[in-house]
């Protein structure tokens, strides 16, 4: 299926919850309202014409005015790919976890939490994965201040 068809199918099913789409770049994407992300992901995985059973990438990106979570999903059977984005305000971004849809989201979401500070509700084990558990701050944010010491050791 082409990107336009996928976008059309999503708009048909979810209507106004799909806020915006950009289909002419190298990586066509659609923006989904954060509250609906779990339903959209379930639909992507279970619908027969989509069958997106492979979550390729889940990235947290920090823009100046917002924080985004990017989901890149792929279908092994139909061989098509699509990208979803969720935009949230930079203070206290919260999103529902899609761990129940794709098992790999568990670790990807832990990393997004660790690096960008997005809290995923319903996650079974949301704690830092790459940095020590008592680290302060979210490194991949653009306004991250490098710490001068960690546990009384100068950095």
């Amino acid at each position, binding site marked *: 299926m082409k990107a336009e068809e996928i976008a059309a199918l999503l708009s048909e099913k979810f209507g106004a919850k799909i806020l915006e789409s950009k289909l002419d*770049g*190298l*990586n066509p*994407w659609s923006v989904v309202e954060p509250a609906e992300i779990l339903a959209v992901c379930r639909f992507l995985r279970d619908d027969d014409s989509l069958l997106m*059973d*492979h*979550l*390729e*990438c889940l*990235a947290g*990106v*920090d823009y100046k005015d917002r924080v985004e979570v*990017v989901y*890149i999903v792929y279908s*092994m059977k139909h*061989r098509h*790919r699509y*990208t979803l984005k969720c935009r949230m305000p930079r203070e206290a971004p919260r999103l529902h976890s899609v761990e129940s849809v*794709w*098992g*790999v989201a*568990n*670790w990807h979401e832990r990393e997004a939490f660790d*690096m960008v500070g997005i809290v995923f509700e319903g996650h*079974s084990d949301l704690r*830092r*994965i*790459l*940095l*020590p558990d008592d680290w302060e701050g979210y*490194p*991949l944010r653009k306004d991250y201040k490098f710490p001068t010491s960690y546990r009384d050791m100068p950095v």
Partner: protein
Amino acid sequence: MQVEYSGDVMTLNMGPQHPSTHGVLRLELKTDGEVVAEAIPHIGYLHRCFEKHAENIEYPGVVPFTDRMDYCAAMNMELGYVLAVEKLMGIQVNNRVRCIRIIMAELNRIASHLIAAGTYGNDMGSFTPFLWCFRDRETILDIFEETCGARLLYNYNWIGGLMFDVQPGFEKKVIDFIDYFEPQVDNLNTLLSDNFIFIKRTANVGIMSPALALSYGVTGPNLRGSGVKFDVRKDEPYLGYEEIDFEVQVGLGEHGPVGSCWDRYMVRIREVKESCKIIRQAVAKMTPGDVQESIPKRIKPPAGEVYMRTECPRGELGYYIVSDGSLKPYRVKVKSPCFTVMSAFREISRGAMIADIIAILGSVDVVLGEIDR
């Protein structure tokens, strides 16, 4: 993911420093006698903030950093990044660059699989295949050293071309190596892969069903070991792979159920032979040319984003690059195949014995540099 523990559960730590775990990985084992109830991996000991570095360095300068993620297959890591940026900028490279890139990537795939096979035998107690594999790998590293001066971390694939052209006699050296090496794979099979004890230790252990593998985003030899025929080089060919004739090897479950440790290991050995085929075809396709002719004066991609996936020896490597039109990337996210396989480790190792944990860890062939970035 709660498991019922019976009676005395001892928490054993296979700590970050251990002769067997391939890198600094901490496995927290909750054992009930010899059986492991849970094996929880803890990562992050090798985190070197690649993604943050990439935001502060210009595009060409990020290439050496990509080497250091998966240091056993550095050519492939560079390749993914370089192809992503070229896709973003719309650069087309000439045939010579494409062929050399294919040869280097496949040689590095052979070297990486040799490390995987050798260290796997070493973990199982068979010390001789380790040395045989490394002996053969030395010839590959000599070829790399002659071309770009480095044995392990190359900085060779540049955006739009290559750092150096290959030395004269390169094609002959490569073909000589492939001619010498293909029979050695059969030797290795006789010694290790078809060894009765090795099969007993690995063929019924760490079964990963295709559904579990897909749900956990496992790709590469780990997915193919479970019987799913999926290879990025066939699915979405890049660099001219669509013109090259090779087969995608899958695990067939000859000894034990499909998706066992032995299947994953055997897929790697068979892939090595396929890589030899690919290299021969790439050498035959090589044409003279200038490898640096497509390198732009200033690497300043237009604003936009791209997701490029390539088949690195450990699976599907994905680079998600967001560009804001400046000289430095805005965001580089690396989807590393070992990261996804490690997330599935807890599921496939439930109920195994301690010795089996080693077998499973060796068969998924993780490199911590790639997981932690």
